[in-house]
């Protein structure tokens, strides 16, 4: 079982769209997937038409295995389950501060369902907090969407630095360019510079700025369902395949199912 976090310390960069489409792509490829919506706004849950969890409030996420497992809901797609968020998730840091070993509580909580899934995808809130540290510790891979602008470049460097300062393995970081607008020369230039700076960390796949992604809120379905053959759909599929191969190089040569 692998844990992949879709994380950015900056909001509105395509983090939830990546988590939703990656989850769908892995499930469609036959993996049993749990998408864990850790963002109190619950956007990932919304895309899958799942209402906020009523049971899993306050500290029970980390303390009550039964409530945790009972809150998981099947999505409308085979192999894909969702742990929906609710507004109490915004107080995770408060609860974690009161617990022993606050930085490994998420990993312990996820252990309870590890046997049920091949992959757990975490859609994370956009900040650096105790919860984020939990996420970095629990995840096998941290997938970071980056809008190719100067500001995002700086934010990504802050994350790389945070990893170094906290002895977190840099190999867990997998950045990819998101909301790319090919008409903007700044995007091309920034991507070129960053690929030079982080040659191993950045994935080749890049997600274009596309209305199909924005319309996920209307369709309430992954782009891979509503517009699988669109540029964005193909890009998410490529992102999923590239990441899968990175995390398990033995799968080289397996075509998408």
């Amino acid at each position, binding site marked *: 079982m692998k844990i992949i976090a879709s994380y950015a310390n900056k909001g509105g960069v395509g983090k939830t769209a990546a988590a939703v489409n990656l989850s769908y792509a892995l499930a469609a490829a036959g993996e049993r997937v749990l998408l864990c919506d850790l963002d109190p706004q619950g956007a990932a849950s919304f895309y899958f*038409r799942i209402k906020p969890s009523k049971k899993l409030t306050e500290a029970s996420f980390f303390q009550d295995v039964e409530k945790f497992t*009972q809150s*998981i809901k099947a999505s*409308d797609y085979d192999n894909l389950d969702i742990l929906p968020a609710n507004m109490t998730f915004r107080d995770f840091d408060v609860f974690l501060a009161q617990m022993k070993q606050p930085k490994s509580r998420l990993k312990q909580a996820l252990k309870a369902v590890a046997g049920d899934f091949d992959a757990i995808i975490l859609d994370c809130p956009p900040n650096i907090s105790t919860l984020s540290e939990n996420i970095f510790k629990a995840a096998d891979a941290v997938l970071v969407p980056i809008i190719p602008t100067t500001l995002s470049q700086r934010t990504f460097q802050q994350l790389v630095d945070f990893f170094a300062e906290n002895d977190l393995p840099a190999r867990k970081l997998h950045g990819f360019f998101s909301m790319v607008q090919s008409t903007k020369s700044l995007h091309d230039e920034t991507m070129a510079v960053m690929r030079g700076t982080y040659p191993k960390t950045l994935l080749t796949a890049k997600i274009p700025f596309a209305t199909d992604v924005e319309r996920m809120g209307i369709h309430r379905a992954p782009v891979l369902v509503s517009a699988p053959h669109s540029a964005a759909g193909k890009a998410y599929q490529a992102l999923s395949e590239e990441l899968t191969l990175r995390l398990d190089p033995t799968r080289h040569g397996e075509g998408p199912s």
Partner: protein
Amino acid sequence: MTHASPDDFILHGPAATAFTSQRLGKLTPVFVPEGEPAPFTRLDTFDQTLRRSGRLLLDLGTALDLIRPDSSAMTQATHGRTKFVPDIAEGPVKQALSDLSPLRSLLPCGTGKLSRAGLAFEDDDHKVHCRAALQILTGAEGQTVILVMLHPLRGYARAQADLRHALATNGMAFDMDALHGLLFPASPAPAPKPKLALTADQTAHDAATAIIALQIPVARLSEPGIVADHDTEFLHDYRVALRRIRSVLSLFRGVYPPDQTATLKARFSALMAQTGMLRDLDVHLLEKPSYYDLLPEIQHPGLDTMFALRAADRAKALARLSRHLRSKAHGQEMTELARLFATPQALPPGPKADTPAYPYACALIWKRYRKIRQIAANLGPATPDTDVHTLRIHCKKLRYLMEFFAGLFPPASVKSLLKPLKALQDHLGLVNDLSVQQVSLQSFLQGSGAWPDSTKLQVAQTVGALTTVLHQRKLDERRKTMDALSGFISPETQKTFREVFHPSKPGPPRKPNP
């Protein structure tokens, strides 16, 4: 039998079609048909092996669908009409039918239409809370039966429970018998196989009469299948029933007056005599694939010619037997015989008629086993085939006796003694078949007068090669027979035979199985 999942249901009648458009509390139904309805033919063997074992096999023309007792379904692509299990291509359905006799044909037993659909129940956000897979079966008279298989969705236990309750209220839990009854009302459930219930104090006369009375309908039921030429098992079953009757008449000496016995024997022998030619040809033609395996490819054209001639002979033999079975005289004879054995009082008693069944059975079985031991003692590699044949006949008689009277003895002991006997019979049967095949091939060759010279030469070469191979196989089988025989006459087996069938102080026999 495997039990169906508690999440599988049957809907039928008006409730079936209405259900797919009914709300489930606050949830809205979404019915999604999958493809057009396809016509199907239900297939089963003559004795309804599939129905008896809770299976439903549907031939959809391009696919075979099998629904099992636990309601799980499987499908496999096919080409053309499926008649025998070995003819089906390798696949899950063939695998699931592997317990069926390869010689029994799958007969059409009903028709209808099948379609599939999905049924989901959604909330106001169009999120699915529960779903089910539907198989919609429509019988020949337009009656609709829907098999509903719930697909559990994690986190929606309440909706699942509501749906389960609604299905139980509007329909019923999955039950294969009910499904058959609803879908094929014209095809009644198979009657349980008739069982012989002998009692220890029953007279030998009544026991013999009861055994024969049970076999006559078996023979009679096989006749239409022989005429229709569905498969070779109909004739085989017909002959087994007649052979059992003849065995009773010859083994149960003294239960009827001698002249009555002689008359009955002659009447049943006359029935049997009609069938010999067709059965020999059936056996020969059933061996066809193995003959091709036995001979090199260069001899295959000769086999083609030989089997074409034999197939023509078989067609003639079948026509002859069919004429006989359909004749008024045969119908009258079978009706009279059935009537004769229907009431034990109708048959006059012989000198041993009143002997109680238990000591009578003990004496017959023990005598037959001792006879086999005597023959076995003198058997060796040089023993002529005729002596091996005699041993085979005695074994067959012993088997019949043990089976006829099985209900009077401890089942475990009878079973433990029948097992080595059956193994020995298998070897003896094979030795006999290999001998008969050689003789049959030679006589076939002798009848070659009307064939063109080129055919004569080709077939003669093929028969020569086959005879050599069959002879070698027969020698191998004789060796295996000797091994099986030594087990059957071993001191341990003899001890058990003595304990069961020749006790020093005959105790009260156990009551027969209900």
